């Protein structure tokens, strides 16, 4: 069994090295393994990139998409799903592919501009039309008369951004006091009646079930609310401070090398930073990254005072370990909140 696989691998390698990849003119396919809310965005971008690539090289390229929870997608790639590129919800998931799958170099995040994040977002508050509870900022979320809907950060990557945004607000408000931030988070989660397993579940709870006064959400999804959930039902509240949500991208180098797609996959990721892709991102309510793109396409976005995960939390690895690992701050705060 093993020797057979070895022969097969050797043959594939021989075949792929014999023909230099840029000389391939036959049609090529790429697999972009992404997280949930980027389906429509990448549908647009893939078409635009295919046209651009055809014009540039004469080669047809088809980009297949796969969407799901960010963590589940990362595990699929670790277990052998042959993604040429990954575009996930948080750097932690790509770090784990690098550490466990060894198909991505450990320094992946420095390989592309802006922490390998072509499109960014931020965390905002979605409230019911007319804002009956008068929610203006994070501080209103710990009022005893307010019910907050957010998914479980232990099972949802998106929910971890929500949590960190609230934590960062509390830090800023209280002279960087960890104890004050912990207390704020404890009060906030005390107001959460349901911890859905994923962001979609929380949206259903808030929208369909009518539970809660405020949904903590990604800005790109909150801005879709009038179109997707019905007009005149919700308002978006931009908090005074929030986190710069950075869903990063990476080339899965080992897979691309094996499949002979390195050039086109790299070009695809670089394409995400071009004006045409940044314009498509803005159309789907993702914030452009980099001062030049921001100046050009960022005009329609509300001004938010943003902090980054690197500034306040020392990066994802540390944030994950401190806050979301078993026995971490979230677990501690929860065992207190119950009492």
């Amino acid at each position, binding site marked *: 069994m093993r020797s057979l696989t070895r022969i097969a691998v050797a043959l594939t390698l021989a075949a792929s090295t014999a023909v230099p990849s840029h000389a391939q003119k036959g049609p090529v396919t790429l697999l972009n393994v992404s997280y949930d809310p980027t389906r429509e965005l990448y549908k647009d971008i893939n078409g635009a990139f295919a046209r651009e690539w055809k014009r540039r090289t004469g080669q047809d390229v088809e980009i297949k998409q796969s969407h799901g929870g960010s963590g589940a997608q990362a595990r699929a790639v670790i277990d052998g799903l042959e993604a040429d590129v990954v575009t996930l919800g948080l750097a932690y998931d790509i770090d784990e592919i690098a550490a466990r799958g060894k198909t991505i170099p450990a320094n992946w995040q420095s390989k592309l501009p802006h922490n390998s994040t072509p499109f960014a977002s931020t965390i905002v508050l979605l409230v019911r039309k007319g804002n009956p509870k008068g929610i203006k900022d994070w501080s209103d979320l710990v009022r005893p008369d307010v019910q907050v809907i957010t998914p479980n950060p*232990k099972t949802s990557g998106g929910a971890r951004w929500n949590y960190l945004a609230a934590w960062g607000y509390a830090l800023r408000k209280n002279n960087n006091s960890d104890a004050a931030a912990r207390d704020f988070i404890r009060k906030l989660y005390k107001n959460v009646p349901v911890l859905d397993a994923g962001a979609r579940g929380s949206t259903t709870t808030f929208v369909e079930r009518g539970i809660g006064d405020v949904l903590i959400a990604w800005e790109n999804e909150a801005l879709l609310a009038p179109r997707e959930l019905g007009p005149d039902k919700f308002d978006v509240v931009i908090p005074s401070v929030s986190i710069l949500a950075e869903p990063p991208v990476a080339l899965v180098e080992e897979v691309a090398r094996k499949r002979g797609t390195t050039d086109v996959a790299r070009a695809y990721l670089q394409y995400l930073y071009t004006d045409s892709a940044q314009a498509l991102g803005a159309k789907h309510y993702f914030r452009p990254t980099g001062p030049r793109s921001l100046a050009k396409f960022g005009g329609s976005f509300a001004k938010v005072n943003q902090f980054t995960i690197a500034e306040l939390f020392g990066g994802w690895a540390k944030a*994950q370990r401190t806050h979301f690992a078993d026995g971490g701050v979230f677990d501690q705060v929860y065992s207190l909140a119950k009492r």
Partner: protein
Amino acid sequence: MMQTVPAGATTRASRARSVLPGVRITLGFTLAYLTILVAIPLSTLFVRSARMGWSGFLSAATSPRAIAAYRLSIGSSVTAALVNGVFGLLVAWVLTRYRFTGRAIADALVDLPFALPTAVAGVALTTLYSQNGLMGALLAPHGIKVAYTPLGITVALTFIGLPFVVRSVQPVLETLPGEIEEAAATLGADRWQTFLRVTLPALMPALVAGVSLSFARAIGEYGSVVFISGNMPGLTEIAPLLIMSKLEQYDYGGATAIAVVMLLVSAVILVSAGMIQRRAARRAA
């Protein structure tokens, strides 16, 4: 573990020459098939959890949070299976013994929980039983909360487990001649005695099989439960959700440790159910 065939069948076939040809081939195929489809995937669980060593396994498998989750998962699954045992039997009884308009529709309804994607079931049940849902609003004034409580989890598990009991009991009930009950009545048994002494023993093997299938289905259920449970740490966190949250931390060892415990507990329960079933079958024969 579970068999609806009388227990003697396989041993008899291997011991004496069977009237049917191809015993060796079919037996060989069956064993290979079960090995590839069931035994190998399950054994990887044990291999993975063995990698973490005893102390790692124990601390992952016996954390207070894991214990709370086992208690909730097993408790609600057993409750749901027993509720299905009582009411599933009743449903099967009515469907086989009475002719009424709409019987065919009622019969088809029983299978729906089989066919429905579990997430859809979960969302539908949560809509009904949340505080402003149809049922939830009726129950709320009486202080009964269903959605986002252990009770809601049990409701969801009862829903998905119902067909197993009905469909196990129904064929046996159909072949059970009504004359036996009449004979019992002519011999002076009242209705309760007829049911308890005559009908129930004959149904027992099928009923136990149905209840244990319903339990087995419930213990591993994730899709429908995560919507109605509310997933509050330590309160409404089922074991499969804990496994998911371990996986989100790429803690494969911890996830398999919990899975192994669940598997062993299920195995013990299912094997004892199988023994009860066999004993009941012998008594009924």
